[in-house]
C-alpha cells in the first residue's frame, strides 16, 4: 500500500533522509521510531505530500505522489505533529471544509462528523472557534478530520502528543480497529511503548538512514537481545549503528 523507493531529502546543509526504502502492506501498522532529528518528520511530510523529496519515489496505493498528487492524497488521512489549524473556523466548519476537499458524500457528512466529534469528545465544542481549543483538542480534531473520508492509508506523526491518557487509549483502539479493517497505518512516534503495543512492524531510523526494521521479535534478533523491551533494542541498534 505504501512503497518508498530510495527516498532522499537533502536540505543543503543536512541530509535529512538518505535513500530510504520500505514497503507497508494493507492493514499493517508500521511504527517509525528514531531519536530527535533522525528524519522521521521529514519522511512523514514527504509521504503526506507537504514537502517534495530530493530524489526517490513515494507510491501510495499504486499512485506515485509526484505524478498523481491528487489521486494519492485522496487515499491519505494525514496528521502532522503540530496541530496548526484555521483558528477562525469552528470545529464543525473545519470538518466541512475538509469533507468538501476530500469529496465526502454530502448526505453522509453530518452524521459522520457528529459521530467522530462525539467519539473524540469534541461534540460540545463543535460550534466554537478553533482558537478556543486546547492543544489536545486541536490534535483530536485533526485526527477526527483525517478519518472523515475513510482513508485507506493513515499517516500520523506523533499521534499521542498532547492527548490525555483516555484519548491515548481511545486513539490506540481506533487505530487497531482501522488496521483490522484493512487501513494501512504509518505512525511515527517517540513513545516506544506505543510502538510496542500498536505496531505490527517497526522501522528504526537514525541520521536519515533506516537501520533496522521488522517485528519486535525480529528487531530483538537484530540487536542480539533475548527478552528485552523495545527501549533496549532501540538503544542497542542506535549505539551499534546496526544496518539491515
Amino acid at each position, binding site marked *: 500500500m505504501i512503497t518508498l523507493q530510495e527516498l532522499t531529502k537533502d536540505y543543503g546543509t543536512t541530509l535529512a533522509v538518505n535513500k530510504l526504502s520500505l514497503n507497508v502492506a494493507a492493514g499493517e501498522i508500521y511504527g517509525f521510531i528514531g531519536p530527535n532529528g533522525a528524519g522521521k518528520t521529514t519522511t512523514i511530510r514527504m509521504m503526506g505530500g507537504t514537502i517534495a523529496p530530493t530524489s526517490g519515489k513515494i507510491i501510495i496505493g499504486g499512485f506515485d505522489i509526484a505524478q498523481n498528487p491528487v489521486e494519492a492524497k485522496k487515499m491519505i488521512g494525514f496528521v502532522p505533529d503540530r496541530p496548526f489549524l484555521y483558528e477562525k473556523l469552528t470545529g464543525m466548519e473545519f470538518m466541512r471544509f475538509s469533507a468538501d476537499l476530500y469529496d465526502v458524500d454530502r448526505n453522509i457528512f453530518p452524521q459522520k462528523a457528529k459521530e467522530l466529534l462525539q467519539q473524540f469528545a469534541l461534540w460540545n465544542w463543535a460550534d466554537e472557534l478553533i482558537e*478556543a481549543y486546547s492543544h489536545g483538542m486541536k490534535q483530536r480534531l485533526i485526527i477526527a478530520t483525517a478519518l472523515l473520508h475513510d482513508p485507506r492509508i493513515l499517516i500520523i506523526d506523533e499521534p499521542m502528543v498532547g492527548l490525555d491518557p483516555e484519548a491515548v487509549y481511545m486513539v490506540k483502539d481506533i487505530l487497531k480497529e482501522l488496521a483490522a479493517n484493512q487501513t494501512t497505518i504509518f505512525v511515527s512516534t517517540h513513545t516506544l511503548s506505543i510502538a510496542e503495543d500498536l505496531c505490527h512492524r517497526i522501522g528504526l531510523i537514525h541520521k536519515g538512514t533506516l537501520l533496522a526494521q521488522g517485528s519486535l521479535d525480529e528487531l530483538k534478533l537484530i540487536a542480539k537481545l533475548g527478552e528485552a523491551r523495545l527501549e533496549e533494542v532501540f538503544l542497542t541498534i542506535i549505539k551499534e549503528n546496526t544496518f539491515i
Partner: protein
Amino acid sequence: MNTLISLLRPRILSAVNSLRQGNKKNNWARIFMYSALGIVFWIGTFIIFYRVLTYFQSVQDFGNILAIKLMAMIIMTFFMLLLFSNIINCLSHLYLSHDLPLLHSLPVSSKDIFFSRWVISTFDSSWMIIAFSIPIFLSYGLIYKANFIYYVIFLTAMIFMCFAAAALGGILVLFGAMILPAGRIRTILILLGVVMVIIIVLVLRLTRPEQLVNPDSFASAVLYLTSMQTPDSPFLPTTWITDAIKAALGNETKTCVFNIALIGTFSFMLIFINNISAQIAYFTGFSKSQTTPRRLFAPLKYRGLNWENLLNFLSRESKAFAVKEIRTFFRDSSQWPQLFLMAALIAIYLYNFSVLPLDNSPIKTVYLQNLFSFLNIGLAASVLSALSARFVFPAVSMEGEAFWIIQAAPVLIKKFLWIKFFLYCIPLVILAEVLVIFSNLLLRVSPFMMVLSVITIFCLVPAVVGLATGLGAIYADFKSENQVQVVTGFGGLLFMILSFSLIAVVIILEAGPLYYIFMANLHGNSLSLMQIIWIICSFGLALALCLLSIFYTIHLGEKSLHIK
C-alpha cells in the same frame, strides 16, 4: 539594566543573524532596493519642501507665517502618526507576540518585560518618522540659514517627541487592555479604526480644502491673516516642539531652551508614569489577553437563509475554499479597521470629485472633464493597488502554519491560487467600477470616456490583483505574526513598484490614442489609417500587459508554492 539588555538581545541578534544567514545575493538586492527607494523619497521630500519654502519666502509679510504654520502642521501630523503607530506597535509587542508566554515564564519582572518591549516598539514606530523629518527640517535650516545649534535642537526635539508619543501610546494601551474584557485586546484596533474614520470624515467636512482656492470665501484678507497668526494651544507638546524649532531658527536661545526643557521633562515624566503604570497594569492586561477570546458578534443563523448558498454556482472544492476564506477574513477583527478605512477612503474619493470647481475653471470644461476622467482611471487603479497590497498580497501568507492543510489536501496549488484570485478580484473590480462610474458621473464626462474608463478598469484591476496574488505566493511568509509585516516586506514593496509601473504604462499607452480620438471628435475629423493602427497596437499592448500580469505572475506563484 542587565536584565533589560538580555531581554533586548534576542531582537538585536535576530536582526544581525537575518543579515548574516540569509541568501547574500538576495539580501544585497533588498538592501539596494530599500536604500534606493529611501534615497529617492528623501531627496524628493527635500526638493519639494525647499521649493515650497523658497516660494513662501517670496511672499512678502505672509511668507514666514505660512512657513511656520506649515511646520506646526507637520509636527502635529508627525505626532499623531507616532501616537497611532505606537499604539498599534505596543499592542502587538506587549500583548500579541508569540514569544510573550516564554518571556513571562522567565524569572524577570513584568516591568522589565514591559520596558524592553516598549523600547522595541518605540524604535519600530519612530525611526522612519525621524529619518523622513530630516529633509524637511534640513530645507528649513538652509532657507533660514540656520546655524549648527538648530540641527541639534531639531533632532533633540524630534527624539523627545518620539518618546512622548511612545509613552503616551504605552499608557493608553496599558489601560485599554485593563478596561476591555479578557481576550478582546484586538477590539482596541477596531475602535481605533472607527475613531480614525470619524476623524477623517470630520476633518474632511470641516476644513473644506477646496475653499482655499477661492479667495471670495474669505471675508477679508485681514481676517485670513489673523486666523493664520493665531497661536496654537500653549499646553500642547507639539506647540513646544514647534516653538523650540522656530526659536532655534531665529537664534532665540532662551525661548528655545525653555521649550526644549518643556518637551524633554514632559516626555521623561510620561516615561516615568508609563513605567509606574506598567507595574500596576501590564501583567493583568497581559493575563487577560491570554484567555480565549470570545466572539465579538454571535453568529446569525436564519433557517433557509444562508449566504453560502450564494456560492452554489462554484464547484465543491472552490466553494469550500471560498467559504473558508470569507469566514476567516471577516472573523479576523484586525481586518475590520482596514475595512472602515477603506469605506472612508471611498467617501473621500467621491467627495473630492463632487466639490471640484469645474464651472469656475478658466480652461475649457469639456477638455478638463475628460482629462480628469482619464487621470481618474490611474488614480482609481492606484487606490485599488493600495487595497490589493493590504488585502490580496498577504492572502496566501494568511494561511499561516495551517498551510499544511492545503498541501496535504487532494487539491492542486494552481486551483488554490486561482480561487484566491477570483475571491478578491470580483469585489475589487466592482468597487473600482463603482468609483470610476460615480466619479465620471460627477464629472459629467462624454460616453466615450465613460466606456473607456470602465473597460480599462475592468482590465487593470484583475491585473493588479493577479500581481498581488502571484507575488504574495512567491513571497509568502507563513510564519508571520501579522499581515502588516508581510506587506511591508520586500515582496510587498516589489508589488507596489510593479503595480504602479503597470498602471503608469497602461495609462501612457492609452494616452496617445485617446488624444487622437478626442481631437478627431472635437474637430469632426476622421482618424487616419496610421492612427487607427497605432490605437489598435496601443490598446492591444495594454491588454496584453494586463493578461501577462495575471497569468504569468500566478504561474510563478504556483511554481514557488509547489512543495520543495
